């Protein structure tokens, strides 16, 4: 069903041209058109300097505000820049990490991770100030004070083992997504299996959403000993296949042969899920 929806949306979206999308983003009359154009430029990976310049401008837009004082256009622009940006956009995205809008901060953290922006490490660490004690919900909002999951994920990708001490306490956080984000980052930083085990344990929890995100996390980090547990998780075969593909490709990257024993083992598990 979702396949159809996507191709339908894509059919419509393609009717916009690159020139038109850039023009829509630059005008200031219609906030809806701007918001959509920012998404579109990222979705279709338009890397022209003019598009990137317009997205950078949108990061400081003041006109598109929601009822909470948030900045919807800035969120989309920050997300799009993670898909089309280059080293030049990093300072502006780092600036966004101190936005008053939680979702702008979250999008910026994710985009800085995607852009491999090592310069973002220190500003990201700053958002963890106060540690687990400070990581509490915002009253009346469906989120914590910071986008911890995105921050921890980005630090796992960008950082080094010197961050272990700062991240490790978040394994005790009561929100499972934060705990899993910490486990994933710590595994990426150290390669130690007991961190990945936290994600494997999540595969047998009662919450389908958490099982799905642990599947995707294990696939992203390519933790090969999880293969059997992934294949046996109660979730859609589609997601298990994506997860196992991550394990397989990690295995292939680190081995000279396409046909190492672990690679064949993962493929035999994938075959059974097709």
């Amino acid at each position, binding site marked *: *069903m979702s*396949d*159809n929806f996507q*191709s339908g949306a894509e059919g419509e979206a393609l009717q916009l041209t690159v020139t038109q999308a850039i023009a829509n983003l630059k005008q200031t009359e219609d906030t809806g058109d701007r918001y959509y154009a920012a998404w579109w430029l990222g979705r279709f990976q338009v890397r022209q300097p003019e598009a990137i310049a317009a997205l950078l401008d949108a990061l400081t837009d003041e006109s598109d505000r929601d009822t909470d004082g948030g900045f919807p256009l800035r969120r989309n622009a920050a997300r799009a820049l993670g898909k089309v940006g280059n080293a030049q956009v990093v300072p502006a995205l780092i600036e966004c990490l101190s936005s008053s809008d939680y979702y702008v901060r979250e999008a910026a953290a994710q985009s800085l991770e995607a852009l491999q922006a090592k310069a973002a490490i220190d500003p990201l660490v700053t958002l963890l100030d106060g540690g687990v004690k400070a990581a509490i919900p915002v009253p009346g909002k469906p989120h914590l004070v910071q986008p911890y999951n995105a921050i921890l994920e980005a630090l796992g990708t960008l950082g080094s083992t010197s961050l272990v001490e700062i991240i490790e306490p978040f394994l005790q956080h009561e929100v499972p997504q934060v705990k899993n984000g910490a486990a994933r980052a710590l595994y990426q930083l150290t390669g130690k299996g007991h961190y990945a085990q936290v994600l494997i344990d999540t595969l047998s929890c009662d919450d389908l959403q958490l099982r799905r995100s642990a599947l995707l996390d294990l696939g992203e980090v390519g933790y090969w000993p999880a293969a059997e547990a992934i294949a046996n998780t109660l979730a*859609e*075969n*589609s997601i298990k*296949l*994506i997860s196992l*593909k991550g394990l*397989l*490709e990690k295995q*292939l*990257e680190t081995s000279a042969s*396409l*046909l190492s024993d672990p*690679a*064949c083992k993962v*493929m035999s598990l*994938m*075959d059974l899920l*097709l």
Partner: protein
Amino acid sequence: MIDSDSLLQSRLQAVESADSAQAMLDSVEALAELKSEKAIDALIRVLGYNNPGAAVAAVDGLIQIGTPAASAVLSQIDGYNYGARAWALRVLAGIGDPRGLDLILVTAAEDFSLSVRRAAARGLGTIQWEKLEKAERLDGQIQARDTLLGVAAADPEWVVRYAAVVGLQGVAIAAISEDYQDLPEPIVQRLQAIAADDDTMAVRARAAWAIAQLPS
């Protein structure tokens, strides 16, 4: 006999009276476990209920039952809505009943849902060729091969190309065991090209593994 019959009746009843998605899933799993031909109609009805968890359990149960389930699905499939039809095609692909071959061929090449194309492409590699007359067997295998060659080269989704590679491996092995000497040649060539060129590393690896598993 009486015991197993009353067990069947009580499990059929449980599916009828399930009042939540979870109860439906549990009762369908329990019914499927019996692998009874008398459960076929009830399991097929579940395919139309818009309950993905229960539908997966019903598909697995019908595949376990095998040929009689394929017969029932084939006699009813024209009347299905899209959702039920997609599940039914997974049943046919999973059983590999050659009476469903034409439907599975079209599905692998054209269905809009990637998970249905994936199941069909995989299924083309596990058709029960021995159920066809010798004369029809070669034709069927050539059709399966040609469809899969196209899917493996051109489907936009990596997982469907991966499944088509697995399917091609199955067709090649079946053809070799039948001694159809010429049939596997284009498969080997295509698998070599995929192992070298596919955009997705996992698909390249699966093609290399398929080549390694072909009898030389």
